[in-house]
């Protein structure tokens, strides 16, 4: 199984980070870093067409942030690994804009400070946005993309998704259209190219965030992230639970091995040397 996360444009995040978490972006649209909610359920608010002209800073490439979304806190000891994929409706105003979707995915602490980069953008492959009609595009641009794994160490970490576009041109007048919000329609199908009639149904879908061990609601009533995944599923690493156990057992085994060596040295080298130094008559017998 996997987790599907929605870009709830109509709901504020638990707190406003107010700045980019990553160093991925060279530009951002107005209000991009007013933090919104990244939810496991849609808030059913209408999707919005975020249209911005004059994008690009003259350098190729240029990454432009459109929005920042913050999840509920995750429980401690959760392994996040596997792949992430999503879909969004978007288009470019000019075929020379060479716009692609861009995604950064991060773990932040209770203050919104970066703890771990799960995905620092995807910079190659995929399909350029269509012009003039808005089409469904994968986000990250290559579809399912591996993330660097992370195990939460407390119950305050959250996931931040920063979404946007990347122009692979030196134009400074790119026009980017991106439709996002919770929406009330059906989820977009995966894959590039499906025409979507400009109907603003635009959800990040099939985000694969794999949990290990006990992944539970952070609080009764479903405030926290709900059960994410158990058992095998498409695109995920096998046996994530074993990976989590392995991670903690690794530390224990490392400590045990060092401890055994330390104990041996203490018993057979350090203490005899100490006694020999104090009583030279025993030395050399």
């Amino acid at each position: 199984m996997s987790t599907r996360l929605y870009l709830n444009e109509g709901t504020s995040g638990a707190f406003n980070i107010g700045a980019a978490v990553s160093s991925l972006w060279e530009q951002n649209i107005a209000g991009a870093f007013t933090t919104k909610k990244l939810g496991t359920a849609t808030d059913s608010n209408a999707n919005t067409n975020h249209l911005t002209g004059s994008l690009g800073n003259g350098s190729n490439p240029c990454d432009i942030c459109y929005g920042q979304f913050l999840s509920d806190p995750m429980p401690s000891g959760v392994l996040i690994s596997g792949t992430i994929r999503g879909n969004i409706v978007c288009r470019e105003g000019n075929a020379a804009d060479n716009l692609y979707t861009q995604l950064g995915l991060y773990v932040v602490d209770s203050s919104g400070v970066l703890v771990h980069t799960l995905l620092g953008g995807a910079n190659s492959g995929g399909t350029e946005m269509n012009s003039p009609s808005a089409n469904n595009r994968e986000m990250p641009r290559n579809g399912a993309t591996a993330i660097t794994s992370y195990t939460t160490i407390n119950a305050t970490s959250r996931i931040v998704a920063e979404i946007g576009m990347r122009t692979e041109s030196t134009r400074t007048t790119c026009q980017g259209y991106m439709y996002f919000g919770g929406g009330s329609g059906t989820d977009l199908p995966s894959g590039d190219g499906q025409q979507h009639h400009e109907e603003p149904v635009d959800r990040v879908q099939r985000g694969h965030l794999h949990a290990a061990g006990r992944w539970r609601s952070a609080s009764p009533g479903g405030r926290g992230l709900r059960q994410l995944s158990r058992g095998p599923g498409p695109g995920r690493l096998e046996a994530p639970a074993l990976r989590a156990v392995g991670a903690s057992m690794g530390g224990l085994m490392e400590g045990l091995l060092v401890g055994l060596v330390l104990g041996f040295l203490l018993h057979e080298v350090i203490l005899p040397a100490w006694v020999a130094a104090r009583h030279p008559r025993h030395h050399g017998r």
Partner: protein
Amino acid sequence: MADEERAPRKASRTPDELTDLRRWAVKVFLALSVLIVVVDLAGRLFKDPTFRVDAVVFGLVFGTLLALLGLEGINRALGAGK
């Protein structure tokens, strides 16, 4: 006669002080083991349910204790036959 010619039994090469020090080392690491278990439990009960003493620290203390106990056991087993 044969008994008189037999070489006198060798005294233990381990000084008493070394034996004492080794026993003290075992006691110290035993106390440390109990301490970190108590800290771990107290942290979970009174501070934060997610509180954990680091696995490396657990491994280090228990590994050292295991090595000391094992070597002491071997020494005693070998010494018991003399």
